[in-house]
């Protein structure tokens, strides 16, 4: 259905727990994990370039925070541009397909095939097309990566409407546009967000991997690659931390938007009752 990553279903969210007490095991695992990592690196004298100590990564992150921040923002802008482009186009195409089904029937096999190919391999092509230093080259690859999951999920949402929901609108002699506005689009919202959440991660991956194939020195991906090829693994890890933080925040913002716009959804039940 999607490339690389899959949406986290809400049911999984429920299994994680929602009260403060439920989070204790998670916090414990975090502390134990970091502690064990530090302990193992120290105890077995693991060479720094393989796995730096968490404290070393933390230190590197802190001392380079302003550079990391500006590099992170540079890359994040590329990701965001691609995200807007790819997701927007994905939703538009899905609307078009849902309005004209034969079109969808003809194109869907290709969408499935496109989903099965490693699209990221096109990153160097984008760099050649739009220029290494042009941020649009990264936006393009991020956009292509975002397009398919958003389009496929949106289309699924627009078309997986209960037949009697449509019959009801027919009984009111409602027009096609009205059916879209009042039934198909609201029905698709949870699906659209599933696609949009997957796309956040894909857009970050697209931007960073695009930079691995060449980009300006101001970009985070270029910094990570340079640091690791010169053996500065601690600095490279600090870059990864920055990329991860941006990725998590991006995902969280979209998840929050989902929570706000689909609070009516039955899976939000827990937040309404009791």
């Amino acid at each position, binding site marked *: 259905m999607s490339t690389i990553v899959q949406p986290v279903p809400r049911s999984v*969210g429920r*299994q994680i727990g929602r009260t403060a007490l*439920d989070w204790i095991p998670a916090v414990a695992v975090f502390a134990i994990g970091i502690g064990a990592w530090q302990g193992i690196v120290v105890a077995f004298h693991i060479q720094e370039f393989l796995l730096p100590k968490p404290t070393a990564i933390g230190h590197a992150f802190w001392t380079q925070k302003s550079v990391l921040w500006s590099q992170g923002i540079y890359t994040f802008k590329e990701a965001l541009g691609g995200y807007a482009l790819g997701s927007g186009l994905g939703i538009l195409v899905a609307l078009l397909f849902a309005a004209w089904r034969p079109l969808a029937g*003809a194109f869907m096999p290709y969408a499935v095939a496109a989903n099965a190919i490693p699209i990221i*391999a096109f990153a160097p092509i984008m760099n050649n097309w739009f220029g290494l230093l042009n941020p649009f080259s990264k936006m393009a690859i991020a956009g292509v990566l975002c397009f398919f999951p958003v389009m496929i999920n949106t289309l699924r949402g627009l078309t997986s409407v209960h037949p009697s929901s449509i019959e009801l609108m027919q009984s009111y002699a409602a027009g096609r546009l009205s059916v879209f506005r009042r039934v198909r689009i609201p029905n698709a919202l949870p699906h659209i967000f599933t696609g949009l959440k997957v796309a956040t991660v894909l857009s970050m991956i697209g931007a960073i991997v695009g930079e*691995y194939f060449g980009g300006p020195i101001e970009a985070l991906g270029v910094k990570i690659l340079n640091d690791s090829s010169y053996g500065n693994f601690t600095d490279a890890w600090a870059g990864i931390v920055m990329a991860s933080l941006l*990725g998590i925040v991006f995902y969280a913002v979209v998840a929050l938007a989902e929570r706000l716009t689909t609070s009516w959804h039955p899976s939000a039940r827990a937040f309404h009752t009791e």
Partner: protein
Amino acid sequence: MSAIAVEPSRRGIVGALPRAAARALLLPLGLAALWGLWEGYRWLGIRGHWTWPFKVNDTNMPHLSKIWHAFGQPLQPDGPPLRHYLWHYALFTGKEALAGFALGAVIGFLLAVVLAHSTLLRRGLLPYIVVSQTVPILAIAPMVVLGLGTKGVNPWVAVAVIAAYLTFFPVAINTLRGLHSPEPRALELMRSYAAGRWKILWRLRVPASLPYVFSALKISATASVIGAIIGETPASLQGGLGYAIVNFNQYYSTQPANLWATIIACALLGITFFLAVVLLERLVLKRAPEHVA
């Protein structure tokens, strides 16, 4: 008075055409359309000197026939043709991806079985498993490959580890959902037979999870290929498709067709993996395919 005319049958001639024939027609038709779009855009772009969104020329959009010919062209004088290299590159990358795919799928499945039985572990580990997918995992690829490489680990194993990581997540999450999918009543039925945890797992939970597992494996199949290709790029690990991409990318301005041919090889490898899982699913799941995940 309204005389409602006899409604013509909705499915006219189109419905009468055998569906299989229509499907068989779709592939060459689609490829032809793609070819037409490419060549048409190219022709218009070159005539009109289009520079937006990118400059249309022989380098950026080589003739598709040139890309096709590139497969047969030798890389060095008197050497074997490109397709010979690409075939071996694809085998190499496929081996890494397959090893990673198998490793990731097994670990993901086992972890899901463990998590399905322990609320404490679920609460402790699941948040990190979930958060780990919001992290651009591929960004760590160079680190893992270069890092493990310096420790004398065979580089292809390091690449397989990345492929495994990308496979692991969807399998773990989906298997967990699948193991929890049986209805309470199905569980009560098993308990009424005095079935223990182990029996419930093998007779009920695992069979119920299979459709979920396969829908994850289909995602992971492509993900493992992506992981292998990207894992190869920083390591200058010779002999794989990722290496070929980096290599041909450097000569793009003079020989663009080689890079395009390599990307087509990547696409074919990804589709092969995907189709292999679909085939496996058909063989294992005899029931009607379900739409899960």
